[in-house]
């Protein structure tokens, strides 16, 4: 398990917050996903061993919550809201635009490994649709032009990283 030293530190720390180790399952899953982007089978087994549980106990939790990812994800995570308010204001078109920009399907990692686009349920900013979240940043009133702009920013960032 290739976890950052800081993640490992946080994991050891958070386990001490609970009277029984098992209770630390969710916090550990969050920490691992934050670090690695997804929860691999190896990660489930690692967490199980860490908490003195069986892998099935972790697998149950991972599959229960849709926000735990069981597949690797691109470097940036683009979530486009598909719920009613955003759908009415053009969320579907925005999602299609992002797909065109990166040539990838929802849920899949783009060929360059840069993004994963997800078409998700309500992002809780329904008055300002269409709403898009890129990693932890919320973007409101994303029309086609804004979607193109955001895509360009992501691509520029990727380029900057690959040409030192």
């Amino acid at each position, binding site marked *: 398990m290739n976890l950052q030293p800081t993640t490992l530190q946080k994991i050891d720390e958070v386990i001490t917050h609970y009277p029984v180790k098992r209770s630390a399952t969710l916090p550990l899953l969050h920490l691992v996903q934050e670090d690695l982007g997804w929860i691999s*089978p190896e990660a489930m087994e690692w967490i199980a061993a860490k908490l003195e*549980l*069986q*892998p*099935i*106990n972790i*697998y*149950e939790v991972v*599959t*229960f919550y849709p926000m735990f990812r069981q597949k690797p994800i691109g470097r940036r995570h683009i979530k486009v809201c598909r719920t009613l308010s955003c759908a009415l204001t053009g969320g579907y078109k925005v999602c299609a635009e992002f797909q065109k920009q990166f040539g990838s399907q929802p849920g899949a990692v783009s060929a360059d490994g840069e993004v994963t686009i997800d078409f998700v349920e309500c992002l809780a900013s329904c008055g300002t649709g269409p709403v898009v979240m890129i990693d932890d940043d919320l973007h409101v009133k994303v029309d086609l032009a804004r979607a193109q702009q955001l895509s360009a920013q992501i691509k520029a960032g990727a380029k900057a990283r690959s040409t030192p």
Partner: protein
Amino acid sequence: MIQPLPSDLITVNVDGKDIAVPKGTNMIEAARLASVEVPHYCYHPKLTISGNCRMCLVEMGLPAVDPATKAPLMDPATGKQKINWMPRPTIACATNASPGLHIRTNTAAVQDCRNSVTEFLLINHPLDCPICDQAGECKLQEHSTAYGRGYSRFVEQKNVKPKRTQLGPRVTLDDERCILCSRCVRFSKEVAQDDVLGFIDRGSYSTLTCYPGKQLANNYSLNTVDLCPVGALTSTDFRFKMRVWFLKQTPSIDCESSVGANTEVWSREGVIYRITPRQNDAVNDTWMADSGRVLYKAVQAADRLSRASLNGVPTTQEKALQAAVDLLSGRGGRVAAGSVNGVAVVGSGSSTVEEQFLTRKIADKLKAPVALVSRVDTGDKILVSADRNPNTRGALVTGLICALPEQKLSALSAAIEAGQVQVILSIGEDLIAAGLTAAQLAKVAVIYLGTHQNATSTVAQVVIPTLTVFEKAGTLVNQQFRLQKFVRAVPGLGGVSDDLVSLSHLLNALGGSTLGSTLGALWPVIAAEVKVLAHTTYDTLPSTGLLLDSATWAGLPFIEGETLHFKPVTAVGVKS
């Protein structure tokens, strides 16, 4: 006047009837004591409570007290203490009885709960009872008859789930039938100590599974099939073999070790189809090992001995018995008449108490030493013990042996080498597997009584076929010194006499007194001669067995470790 109750009993009221129940009894069991059934799926008396199926909803009330003074509030109309009924139903499995608890199971509201739970359970259920192994013993089927509406209001598409997942080598799962009660999950974790099962995904997509790459492979996996209230977990061996209502149940005992788990043998027209555990709270609760469930296959095994033989040539039972008598009394066989100076008897810890009793009599008649074959393996700390003989204690009780059997028949082996033994009478034991060599057997004449061919039966001068535990009746004494009986499940193989008939024939022909060859005839003799079995008869032996006074053998270094409901007593004076 109301009698004061013993301190551990409390009074509860079930459907208007007062009943005394032990403290800590849950409402399902309290109702059961009042002969009221509370339907349930996830609750199992031997597992922890999970309270997830909601089938056991009942109305619950507690005696009213004044909030300030805690004085009972009386109802002027009846003169009794008022009952505060909870506004919502409660699950009976997860609520323990408290003094004065009132339970109502027969109201319209409770009926409504049961109907609704049933309707919800059935919306995604495949309703494939005609091809389901559980049909006839399915809780969902039973409760749907009682609480189902008879037709479905569900017009949507049903969920589709895996129909034949191999959870392990012996268990096949039909996920569509699973009602997510989690009994199997709890059993694996709590009893089998092998936490491999779990539910993945959620809502109506929840699916029972093992962690990828793991299997439900422990030696107790088939208990999940027994406790699954529906047909989701099925035995791969029994799957699609037989409708259960055609099967006859016979109480029996698991002979794989000295635990003596109580079992039920299911047969039809003389053929056994499966073995399941029979509840005995002092021995095996409601469980048994998988390894004990396949033992019935020995009955129809290809290597079964079905005919008597003399020097390898098939003969009649009478001739074989006569030849045995001749050998044992020194009148025949390959040693010159009258020159036999040594007969040894090898008895068996797998024989029944009755057979061991007769074997002792035969040995006494012949003044022959008796050896018992020891069968030791590691115990699993659950329901298979280290002593793989089911009836070592029986051999002690009947006096067949007075010390625990030694490894490898070493005394007998030395006696053969010293030329002191010419004839060996083996009651069901393979002498070569037990430690004698082929060269040693070549020096003696062997009379073998047994069920299956083996290295000994092939070299024996006289072979007399006997019956398996499923084809005869008798008793065994388990590691707790509990005398337990088993009943004949299927008729014996054609042409094979009951072991007791053969043994008592030998005894009589050797000049012993006629003791009879049936359990009814033998037991009065056994009860009269064996002190700890005094007043016991086969017929009156309770189905849960009878604990014998084991003081006589308390000092012996028994090899069993701890198992369910059994703690070894460290022998006095024996240092470990």
